[in-house]
C-alpha cells in the first residue's frame, strides 16, 4: 500500500513522484517497469506511472447536466476544473459505486487533466519488461482494444495494463 495520510482530504494527494524517480532509473534497458495498480470490479488493472499526475480521494462532485453518462461531473483539483469520468463505464462495464473506497487518478489527456474514477488503488507494480505480454489475443470482447499488456507480477495474478490513449480516442476526444 502506498502511505495514505488520513487527514485533510485536500492533502490526501499521494504524489507518485518518488516512485517515478525510481522508475526512471529502472526504465533503462529491459529492467522492470512501473505501473500503478488499481481495481475495477475486482480485476486489477495497471496504468503506466508516468501518466498519473495525482491520486486523490473523491472530492465534492458537481453534476454536469446532459453530459455523457460516463461523465460523473466536474471537480476542483487544486484550483483547476477537472472532468471526472467513470473508467468502468468508459470501458463498457457497470458504473462504479460512489464514493466507497473509490479513488481518482488524475491523468493528462490532451491539454487537460481528467480524473478517472476507480474502485481502489492497490500498489505500484514493478514488472520486468520481459514478463509483459504485449497486445494479447483475447478474442473480440468489447474491452479488448484497451488492453496494452498483460503483466503477471505474481504467479496467480494478472494485471491488465490499459492503453489510455485508446480509451480516450474511442470515447472522450
Amino acid at each position: 500500500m502506498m502511505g495514505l495520510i488520513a487527514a485533510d482530504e485536500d492533502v490526501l494527494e499521494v504524489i507518485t513522484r518518488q516512485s517515478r524517480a525510481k522508475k526512471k532509473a529502472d526504465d533503462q534497458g529491459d529492467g522492470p517497469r512501473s505501473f500503478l495498480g488499481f481495481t475495477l470490479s475486482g480485476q486489477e488493472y495497471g496504468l503506466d506511472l508516468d501518466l498519473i499526475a495525482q491520486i486523490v480521494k473523491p472530492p465534492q462532485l458537481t453534476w454536469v447536466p446532459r453530459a455523457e453518462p460516463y461523465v460523473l461531473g466536474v471537480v476542483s483539483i487544486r484550483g483547476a476544473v477537472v472532468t471526472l469520468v467513470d473508467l468502468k463505464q468508459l470501458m463498457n462495464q457497470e458504473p462504479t459505486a460512489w464514493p466507497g473506497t473509490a479513488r481518482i487518478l488524475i491523468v493528462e489527456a490532451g491539454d487537460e487533466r481528467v480524473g478517472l474514477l476507480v474502485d481502489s488503488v492497490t500498489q505500484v507494480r514493478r514488472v520486468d519488461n520481459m514478463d509483459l505480454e504485449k497486445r494479447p489475443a483475447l478474442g473480440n470482447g468489447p474491452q479488448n482494444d484497451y488492453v496494452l499488456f498483460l503483466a503477471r507480477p505474481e504467479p496467480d495474478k494478472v494485471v491488465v495494463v490499459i492503453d489510455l490513449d485508446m480509451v480516450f480516442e474511442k470515447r472522450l476526444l
Partner: protein
Amino acid sequence: MIDDKGTKGQKALGEFLSEAQDIIESLGKSLMLIDKSVETKDMDQDLVNDLFRGMHTLKSLSAVFEVAPLSLLAHHEESLLEEVRLGRIEITAELLDLIFSSLDVMTRILGKVGESEEAGAAWKLAEVDALIKEIERVQKNKAPDIEDPGAEIERLHDKLQLFGPEVLEVLTEYEEHRLKANLERGLPFYKIGKTYKLELIDVELNAVKNLLKSTGEIITYLPSVDESEPEKLGIDIILAAQVGMEEIVAALGDIDAQVTKIETDRHVSGDRSTPPDKLLAGDDGSSLAGKERLDSIPAGEERQRAMIPFSDSTQSLSLRSVSQTVRVDIRKLDLLMNVVGELGIMRRAIGQMGDQLGSVVGRGDLAIELHRINRGFDRNLLELRNGILEVRMVSLTQIFDRLSRLVRKVARGLGKEIHFAVSGGDTEVDKLIIEELSDPLMHIVRNAVNHGIESIDARRKSGKPDFGTVAITAYQKGNHVIIEVEDDGAGIDFDKVVQVAVERGFVDDEQAHALSEEEMLKLIFLPGVSTTTETTELSGRGVGMDVVRTNIAAIGGVVDVQSEPGTGTKISITIPVTLAIIPTLLVVVANQTFAVPLNTVAEAVFATQKDVHQILGAETMALRGRTIPLCRLAEFFDAPDLEPPSEEFYVVIASFGQRLLGLEVDSLIGQQEVVTKPLGKTLAKVRFFSGAADIGDERLVLVLDTGAIIEEFYSITESAELASPAVEEI
C-alpha cells in the same frame, strides 16, 4: 483640502494616488540599484538623478493635492538628494535606509489618503517629523565642502581650464560637479559631435545617448546652430568615458558622429601644441570650432532654452511613462468586457437569423452574405476581446521591485547577507491576478529570508558562502505563468513539521513514521503547521502556507514545494495568465448551485403555480402585461430523481437578444462575482455551460450559458410548431 474635495473629485484623487504610488515604486527601484552599486562605488549617476527628479515630481504633485505631510517629506528628501547629487553628501547604507523608510512612510500616507482625504491630511505628523529631523541631521553632518583650495583642487582647476571657457561658463553647478568628479577619477573625456535634424532631434539624441550609456557618463550637451542649415542643430556631447575611443566608436555603430578625445592629462602650462579650442572642434572641416559655434548662441540663458526639448526627453522614466501611457480603472475594462459579452450574444442571434434565412427559398444568397458578414464580425469581436485582455496585462516588475525592498529590509534587520536574484520580471499577468499575488509572494519571500537562509555563522559551518541567495524567477508556459522562489538555505525542517502536524492531530504517530518526504511537504499546507510560534515584526501577520495556498487557489493557481535539507527550498506558483471575472446570480436547481451571468438576467421574481398559465401547451407566466415562456431548469437539465414541481419557486427572467425566457429555479442565493474557468475538451459536447467557478464552497459551480439555453429552448418549441413566443419584433 476638505473643502476642495468636491471640486477636485474622486477621479482626480484616484489618479493622483496611482501616479504617486507609481513614482514611489520607481524611486524604490532606483534606490535598490543604488544600493547594489554602493559597495562597488561604481554607480550610475543617472540613478541619483532619477531619484532627485522623481522626488521633485512627487513633491509638486502632492502639493497640488494638498497632501501636506507627503509634500513636506518629499521636499526635505528632495533637498537631501540635491546635495547627494552634487556630491556633498556621501551615499552610505545608512543614508539609503533613511530614504527607504521615507518611501515606506510615503506609501502609508497614500494608503491613508486612499481611505479618506481627511485621514491623509491628518497623518500623524510625528513620524514625518522624525524623518525630517533625521534628514536635517544628515545634512548638517555632511562632509565639509571640498571647496578648500588644496593643491589637488588647484590641479583640477588647471585641468578644467582645458575644456575652455565656452564649456565651463555654461555648465550648471551639477554638471560642473560631475565633470570634476570624473576628472578626479582620472577618466578620459571625449567629445561626440553630430548634427541632428530638428524635427527628429529628440529621437536621434536619445538614441545616441542610449548607445553612449554603456561607455560612460554624459556630462553635458553643447548645442550650436549652423546658419546655413537652419533645420539642423549641431550638438557636442561631452562624455566621461570608462572605455577607449575604439569602444565608443563601436558603440555608436552606424551613427555618423565625430569622436574626439579631450586631452586632460597634460599640464596647461606645458605643451600647448594642441590648444583647447582646437580640441573641442571636430576633425571635419565642415564643423566649426567650438568657440565660434558657441558664439552664435549667447551662453547661459539662450543655451538653456535651446536645451529644453531634449533635456526634457531625458527626464526620469516616471515622467515619460505618464506621457505615453493611459491610466485606466480596471472596472472600466470589466465594463468593456461585459459589452463584448453582449456583442457575442448579438452575434449569435445574427447567425441564427442567417440560418433561418437560408431555409427560405430564393434567399440563399442573402443568407450566405449574412454569414460572411457575421464571420467578419466574429473575428473582430475576438480581436476586441483579446485586445481588452491584453490591456489588463501587467508585468510582474512592480511586485518584484517591492520584493527586492522587502528582502533588503528583512535581511538588514536580521543581519543576514542576501543576494536577491530576479529574473523574468517582464512576464505579464492579468492585473487582478497581480493584486492577489502580492501577499502570498511577500510571505514566501519573507519566509525564505527569515527561516530559509541561515545565519552567517551557520552558513560558514556548513561550508556555504556568507551571503545567501534567494532567487525569484517568472516565466510563461502556455496559458500559465510560473513563479519560482528558490533559496539556498537550510531547507524545511521535516522533523519539526511532522511534530507540529502530530501535535495538531492531522496525523497520528504511526502515520507520521510512514510519511514520505513528499507527504511531509504536503503537511506544511495544513492550517497552523507552517506558522512559527514566535511572531516577530518581520515574519509579519503570522499567515501560514495554508493561507498562501488558499489565496493562490482562489485565482486558479497551484503551489508546489520542494525542499532538500541543507541545500534549500523551492516554491513554485503556477497561475493562469488571465482571469475571466463575471458577476452572476447564484441559484439552486435540483439541489445544486448554478451561476447565471448577471448580464443575461433581466430580473428575478417569486412565483407560485397559480402564476403559471398554459398557452397552447407551453407554460408561461405574465409579467407586467407581457407573456413570458417558462423553462423548468431541473426538467430541462434531465435532473436525476426529478421531483414534481413545487408550489412556490423563483423565476429568473433571462434575456437573449430579443428573446426572454423565464428560468424556473428552486431558490435564489444571491449575487456573486465568480472567476470562470473553462470546462475541459472532454465536455465540449455539453452545451448550456460556459465554464465552472470556485465560490469558496468545496464544490464547483457551473456557469450557465444562458444564450445557449434560450436558443435550445426555442428550437425545441419551434420545431414542435408551438406558437413562437417572441416578445418583440426585431
